[in-house]
């Protein structure tokens, strides 16, 4: 299923990232996964959290810009070629991966990967057909 990720615009100034994370911590928001894409002047903080509405409201109150983006979260067996296998499935049908980041899972033999892909419907279909482990919102909240 498609998961809604939060993206936050962060100026490349001292303390701006910390400020955003502070806001979330004050609201007791649990961050399930996090990644920062950076350029020379600013960054995009990408987050999978446990309560999108609450997080978005708190960040916007602090004048931060937040956008919701649909991503796929995939469970990958924790051994070599695990991720590569997934990427091959997508590449075979020409589906472009915009970005990707990984995080922890409570399961000992599983890595969890967040992906933004070009054609999310098609990608989901292909991965499901290949019996990949697509995580649901419930799965994520239970991590």
């Amino acid at each position, binding site marked *: 299923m498609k998961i809604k990720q939060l993206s936050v615009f962060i100026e490349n100034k001292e303390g701006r990232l910390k400020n955003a994370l502070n806001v979330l911590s004050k609201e007791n928001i649990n961050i399930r996964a996090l990644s920062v894409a950076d*350029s020379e*002047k600013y960054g995009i903080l990408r987050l999978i959290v446990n309560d999108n509405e609450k997080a978005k409201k708190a960040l916007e109150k602090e004048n931060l*810009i937040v956008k919701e983006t649909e991503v796929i979260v995939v469970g990958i067996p924790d051994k070599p070629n695990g991720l590569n296998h997934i990427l091959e499935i997508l590449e075979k049908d020409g589906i472009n991966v915009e970005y990707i980041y990984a995080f922890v899972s409570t399961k000992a033999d599983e890595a969890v990967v967040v992906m933004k892909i070009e054609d999310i419907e098609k990608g989901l279909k292909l991965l499901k057909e290949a019996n990949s482990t697509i995580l649901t919102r419930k799965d994520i909240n239970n991590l």
Partner: protein
Amino acid sequence: MIWNEAAECMDEEDKKELQLSLLQQTVKRAYDNVPFYKKLLDDAGVKPEDIKTLKDIEKIPFTTKTDLRAAYPFKMFAVPDEEIVEIHTSSGTTGVPTVSGYTIKDLDIWGEMTARGLGMCNATKKDRIQNCYGYGLFTGGFGIHYGARTVGCTVIPISAGNTKRQVDTLLDFQSTILTCTPSYAAYIGEYLKKEGYKPDDISLKYGVFGAEMWTEEMRKGIEKSLGITALNIYGLTEVMGPGIAIECPEQTGLHVADDHFYPEIIDPKTGETLPDGEKGELVLTTLTREGSPIIRFRTKDITTLHKGKCACGRTSCKIERITGRSDDMLKIRGVMVFPYQIERALFKTEGIEPTYQIHVTRPGLLDEIEVKVEASPDMFSDEMKELSTLENTLSKNIHNEIGLRVNVTLVEPGSLPRSEGKAIRVIDERNFE
């Protein structure tokens, strides 16, 4: 509606006759009562009697802000102290402030001037004016206030600041006319949207905005976010305050109250008077002012004069929207750039917030311009490449306007300083010594 038809729709020949008569009286009064003007005219070999036609005004040398600063505080007054009932000054941020003194009659005239502007908003006694121009030495607050009193509207003298209070007042008091700087109007529009209000939630019909330069694009943005017709008002402390020129709903230029102020356009380099329709520096002469008569004041504002009858029915001459000041002009790598041009380019791009700032530096041997624009929810993309593309598009649009390559940087919303008065758009860090 036209507040004063006899004055605002005067026949051209009658107007010229009136202007000449008033000019002659003003020059005589200034010569007889203001030492500065006596010396100015004596040094130029000109006597008040030498003003026989309107063109003879060109015999008189200009008055500049430097002259007014040198007369600080009261040396430009043409009447005894007891006749001055009110004083206003310029901000004094760039030097000694200039002082304007008003007699009771001057205040009546001021009220009449801004009342004409409220007429352009079809204001009646039933209208409620939320006046967010600063009340104090600044002329904005009181100028509008006197106009409101002249028409008999309900004036809410809220002055500047405390945006939450401003918006509560708009909602609770159901104000119908808003008066403030255009950047503040844009800010109120932003705030309303952020709080989840729609233009229909407020009762504003018109806005009268001035005290700083603004573009047509910015006007459209404000009209949309507040659901109003936004009119431009012009004035300066040295010559009276707001009301010297006000735009009618045709929005094709600002009507100068030319039965009280005589406008000329000159070439800022040579001082030569230019024909109507040519762009240059606005020079103003007061025709009826008693306390502080001013002759041929160089405003440094760049505009164009147009005569003839407007579609609204008024015959008072019009000036175009001010697009620059002869001293706000930036010289970047030898090219003349006005902040106005950059604003226009930014607004051409989709989804832009109206808040920006221009930084000019010279890190090495060449000038660099960086334009900081606040990111807005509409602009923000989850993908780095789209943000880069946006910056490049903005840079390209600016390049099309001014012919120079600039760096565009997206910054966090609210990170650029807001102003309840004039917005600071340009920070020039170059040291020219």
